[in-house]
Every structure is written in structure tokens, then in C-alpha cells.
């Protein structure tokens, strides 16, 4: 017996003119238009309770979001913690990161920070101290504070933007770096602008228009 169904074969059917890109956005079939990844900072205010950090980090791994750093710490309110995440994703991905985070029950509010937001990171750098004068000169250049010294080593604390820390580590490397430990980025909105507040009604539920992705991608 004949198997299958009757009907015009695939090549006999009309085909539509349009096309979507891989992100599901309708595009001009002639032009390749995909959103390029950009680096941005997302701040989330969460309930300060066990399991929140694993909820958040698990979300990032299972949805394959590209994450560069994640920091968590207490806030002015004992019941709230703040999670600051640096992600590198195209606009639709950033949109998803925010929405998926917001969906976690213990997450109170989420927002992407403006490019001008204050961003800081801290690093501890332990270097060989055979030439204390030169080491100290480099430390001065980067406003690094000595936190420990021994006959063979000196350890400095550097605070600042990611570039500043990378530049400092780079410069210190001439003396021989023994160890580096960095915190990841924490950030806050400027002036009266709220970083990620407790006001639930301010949550934008509908955002669907992606901004242009030419914003400055980094730091101070």
C-alpha cells in the first residue's frame, strides 16, 4: 500500500518572501542583521535567604548566558542582598537575562545599569619585593594600598575600574606576580537614579524594542 498523505509536493508550494534571523526577528531578506554581543552590568535586588545565589548562578548556566562576573553582598536592608552581574550578550540575550532573573521568586527587582553607572572592582596582588622602591612607585601610580609585606613579598589592594586593575596587574607583572585575587564587579547607578529598587510596580514587563548596541561597553 501507498504510505503517507496526498497533496502538492514541497517544491510545488508557494513560499513566502520574508525571513527571520536566528533571534526570531523579521529581517530584510537581503541584509544579514543580527545583534552583536555587548558587555553590560545587571543589578538585582534579591531576598537575603539561602539558595538565592545558587538559583541565580544555576539560571545562568542552564540557559547558557555568557557571564563574566557575579558578586553578591548585603545591602542597607538586612532582608535584601544585591547581586551584580556582568554579562556579554546581544540585546535579545540581555533582555532574556533580565526577564528570567525577574521570574525567580526570591528576586525583587532587576535592571540593566546605564553605561555611566559607577563600577568598581577590588584586587589583591601579591608580588616579589626584591626592589621595594620600584614596587612602591608602581603602587603609587595606581593608588594601590599595601596590605601585607614580608621580606620576599608585598601585597597591594587596588580598587577601581576593570581597566585600571588590569593595567595595574600588567604593570606589577614586571616584578613577578605570585598571586592575584579579584572580587568581580560591583556597581551602582549615579545620583538619584535607583540601582534596582524595591518598587515592584516600576518593573517594565513589556520591553521588546531593543536599543541600538553602540553604547560604550565598559567602565568609567
Amino acid at each position: 500500500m501507498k504510505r503517507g498523505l496526498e497533496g502538492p509536493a514541497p517544491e510545488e508550494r508557494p513560499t513566502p518572501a520574508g525571513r527571520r534571523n536566528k533571534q526570531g526577528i523579521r529581517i530584510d531578506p537581503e541584509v544579514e542583521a543580527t545583534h552583536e554581543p555587548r558587555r553590560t552590568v545587571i543589578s538585582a535586588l534579591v531576598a537575603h535567604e539561602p539558595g538565592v545565589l545558587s538559583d541565580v548562578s544555576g539560571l545562568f548556566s542552564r540557559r547558557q548566558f555568557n557571564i563574566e562576573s557575579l558578586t553578591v553582598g548585603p545591602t542597607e536592608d538586612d532582608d535584601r542582598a544585591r547581586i551584580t552581574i556582568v554579562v556579554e550578550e546581544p540585546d535579545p540575550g540581555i533582555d532574556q537575562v533580565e526577564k528570567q532573573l525577574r521570574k525567580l521568586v526570591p528576586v525583587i527587582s532587576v535592571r540593566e545599569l546605564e553605561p555611566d553607572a559607577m563600577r568598581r572592582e577590588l584586587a589583591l596582588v601579591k608580588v616579589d619585593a626584591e626592589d621595594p622602591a620600584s614596587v612602591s612607585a608602581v603602587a603609587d601610580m595606581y593608588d594601590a594600598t599595601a596590605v601585607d609585606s614580608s621580606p620576599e613579598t608585598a601585597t597591594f589592594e587596588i580598587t577601581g575600574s576593570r581597566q585600571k586593575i588590569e593595567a595595574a596587574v600588567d604593570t606589577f607583572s614586571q616584578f613577578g606576580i605570585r598571586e592575584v585575587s579579584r572580587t568581580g564587579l560591583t556597581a551602582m547607578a549615579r545620583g538619584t537614579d535607583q540601582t534596582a529598587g524595591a518598587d515592584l510596580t516600576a518593573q517594565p514587563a513589556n520591553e521588546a524594542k531593543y536599543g541600538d548596541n553602540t553604547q560604550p561597553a565598559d567602565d568609567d
Partner: protein
Amino acid sequence: MSERAAKVTPTDDEQTDEQITDSAAPDAATEPDSAAETESETTPEPVTTGAEAVVRALETAGVEYAFGVQGGAIMPVYDVLYDSDIRHVTMAHEQGAAHAADAYGIVSGEPGVCLATSGPGATNLVTGIADADMDSDPMLALTGQVPTEFVGNDAFQETDTTGVTTPITKDNTFASDADHVGSNVTEAFALAREGRPGPTLVDLPKDVTNGETDREPDEPKTPDTYHVQERADSEIVAAAAERIENANRPVMLLGGGVIKGEASEACREFAIEHEIPVITTMPGLGAFPEDHDLSLEMAGMHGTGYANMAITHCDTLIGIGTRFDDRLTGGIETFAPDAEVIHVDIDPAEISKNIYADYPLVGDAETVVEQLAEAVDESPEVKKWRAQCQQWKSDYSMAYEAPEDAPVQPEFVVEALDEATSDRAIVTTGVGQHQMWAAQYWTYTEPRTWVSSHGLGTMGYGLPAAIGARLAADDDQEVVCVDGDGSFLMTLQGLSVAVRENLDITVAVLNNEYIGMVRQWQDAFFEGRHAASDYNWMPEFDKLAEAFGACGFRIDDYDDVADTIEEALAYDGPSVIDVHIDPDANVYPMVPSGGDNGQFALTEDQL
């Protein structure tokens, strides 16, 4: 699954119950006869332990049924359930408990409750929880846990249940003390039901359930951090309405969210008023009557040719309660490529996740469809488009060949079952070819009559789901499980439960002695090499059913079909029909994975 202690059955009355809880708090015995007294209808006895608070929480939430399996760490809860009006259905396997609870949730709309002990009990629930999560079914799972002081020490039957289930639950909680455990449960119940439904879990360490408390659980309510938007932004509604008025080729795509959001009636009225053709996703089956002129039935990988043509060529796609799953969309690049998308969903994270929404409408499906209905002043001009859709309906008819001398065709069996049952009959399925035939050839006209495993694709879902569906359904609704031989074999221990509870369900096993969908793909994409898909070692299911105490039937020929189905449906209790179908029957149309919906294959050589 249970530890040795769990096998000690309480033979006497409630007075001896404390003796079998191996780490019972001594104070639990201070009021020995309180539970044994006859029930005082008006004011229930105050709670004294965490376990009593847990059961009180379920009662407060209005729970009528719970599905589960006993075991060491959950025993304190079971001991209290023993006296409760909640009807507990002891299942043969925890996976079945989860599927039964899931199906109960689908049919009733209220969270289905399942219970299991710690360790293997909890991990056996995992498949069912993941299934409920993928399909957004309301479900509450309660799992026993080793006493808090042992947690983290790799104690006997210890598993990090909240850790394991975090990615597959809407939310989960490790109950940390007896005073709050009751409210943990009511809150989890509310979370499972509110907004976009889903499974929640409360992990119950034995010291917490045995612990003393006099705290009654709070009424079920979601935590303050949980926010659901009911109404969509009115400006976007107005813009979407204008788009609909000006559409030339509109379609409505109704997903499972329409059924969960009780929006079927509103969608029906909207479609009929504006004469907009209606397509459903697989979870959306029943959201719109398939015998209506406007219905194009189901789109997607095994959707009808006409639904896939319409969705590919539409210029306005009104997607309601759908997450644009890859089995629906096929390749993203070719999905409704000319369409402006109006997307209604209660979960903002679904907006533009897979398909960009030109008009994102976040809110409750029924509310937003009513908003749209109010905003659309004039119907779009659809005469030509409707004629085109009708043309496609005849061009790509689902009519199949069923020659008398060939083996029984599965489509024929599905249609015969549909014919022999009422419009409100409930269909449950496993996963595979039989599931697709059941989706394609049964005519769904009512919401909450299609109970299947869509997102996770769990073989073995059908029988335990039929058990849960039976208990949630009205007495006049038949419950038919259309199963496959491979799927049925995975969870058929549930027959013992159906027999014990005398549940009136009919299982029709479409037996092709293959794990058929795999065999179909092997023929199409693996040069016909039937690696591990040949199931010619199947038991005789009719005899197996008899061994369980159910009623067994067998069909080999067309002549047997109608009569046997009638007999099986008439049997008051569980019956199993082993239907020997054409082993080479395939499911068409078919869009290969990631393919273009408009290029569906009607035969194997078109793949």
C-alpha cells in the same frame, strides 16, 4: 523504595502510631487521643506537630487527592494523612505519582499533589516534576528529607532534593522549622497555581515534621516578591487591535496557556466574531473546537498541512499562551516570516524569547483577549484568505489509506475510539507515534480533554496520567489512554493501582512492536538501521492486564475494532486493548527538525 522501618504497617489504631516513627519527638505523644476522637466538623483540632501543619496546609488549600509512595523520611506526614479526609492514592512508583498529580492538575486546574520520601523517592519524582515544569502544569511535590542534623552528611536516603529540583521547579523550599512548615506548604501551593502555573516543591526534614508547633498554616498566598501582571499595556493593545483590523491574512495560534488561563471561550468568541482562522499548538488542543469551520487544527512538526501553510503565509499572527517551542516553529528563519506577531503571555520572559513580538501583550490570557475584543472595532477583510485556507484544507487533507487486506492502521483506531466516546472524553498519551496519531485524528472540542507530555516528551506518561485524570474528571467523562507499546511498558506497574482503586480507564496500546517514532526517523535519516528500536520482545499486553486484575482485549483485524472498543469502554474498571497495528505505519505530515514548516513532507521521499 522505602527503608526497612517503612515496611512496618500500622495495624492498630492511631494510638500506636508514634511507635513506628523512629525519631519521633517524645512530646508528640502528649495528646495521644486527640486525633483518634471522631471529627468535629466545625473547628478542626489545633495542630501540634510539623506534620500536622503540613496536612492542615493541604486541607486549607482545598486539596482532595494526593498521590504518593511511603518511605522512611515522609512517614510522619503519612501518619497524619491517615486520619485526614484527603484521599491518598498509593502509587506503585513515585514517577507515576508525579504524572498522576500532573494530570490531575491539567484536568482540574488546581495543583495536583504528590508525595515521596527522601533520596530515591524524591529522585523518582524528578521526571514527573520536569514534565510539569516544561508544560507549566500546576503541581505541588512534598518530599521527605533526613533530619536536619544529618543533612550534608550523606545520610541514608539523603539527596539534595532542593538542589536537584531547582532547575525544574517554579520554586522550591527546604522547610527549616516546624513553626513555618505549614505556611511553606500553602505558599508553595499558591505559587504552583498563580500566574504561569508550574511545579513547586517543599522538602520536609523528618525533625521538622516531627517537631512541635502550634502554628496553623497561613491561607495559600504567594510571597510579596511574586508579581503577576493581569492586564496588558493599553497602548500596545490599541496598536495590536489596529494591526488586526488591517490584517489581510490573520491567524490565531492558541497554546496551552489559553486552556490554563480559562481563555478558550473568549478566544472562541473573538475568532468567530472576526472570522479569523485558528491554529492550536499541541498543548493547545481543545482550546478551540476542531470541528469548527475556522479550525485548522494543530501546526508544527506533525501538524496538519493546512495549519502549517497558514502559519507560514499569514501576515498577522496572534499567538496566545504559547512559548513558540521548536517543535511548533521548526526553523526560526522560516517561521511565519511575513507575519507581524502579537504575543499574549502571562510570563514576560516568553515575550521575544524565540520569536520577536511586534506587539508584546503581557497579561492573563482571558483578560487580554477581552481587552483586544474591546479594542478591535471592525473585522479584517479575510474573505480571500479564508478561501485560501479552505483550499489548503482540501489540498492537504488528512485522509489516509486503510485497505481491508492490510494490517490495522493506527489512524482508524484513534478515530474509532473518538467515535465511541463522548465529546468530553479525556485522552491521555505516552510519547511517540501513537501520541501524534492521537493528536491528529481525534477531534478535540473541549479544553482540558487532552492530557499529554509535550515539552519534556516523557514516554510512560499515559497510564499514570490516566489515573490522575480519572480522579479529576466528572463521572460521565470517559478516560482513554492512547498508548504505545514502548511507552506502556515503562510505567505499566500503575495498572495495579488502577485495579486496586477500580478506576474506569481504557488503555489502547497501539502496538507496532517498535519504538515507532525512532524507527520512523531511522528509516528517514539513518538508512533504515533499526538500532535498539525493534521491540518484538513485547509481552502480550492483554494477558498481562488480566494478571494485574484488569480486563484484557486484543485487536488484530479491522473487524474486531469497533466491537472490542465498545466492550472495553463498557467494562467498569481498568481495561487494556492490545491493538496490533501496521508496524510500518508512519506519522505524516512531518517537518524535519529545524526545517521549514511550509515544506512539510507528506511521504518519506519528500524528507
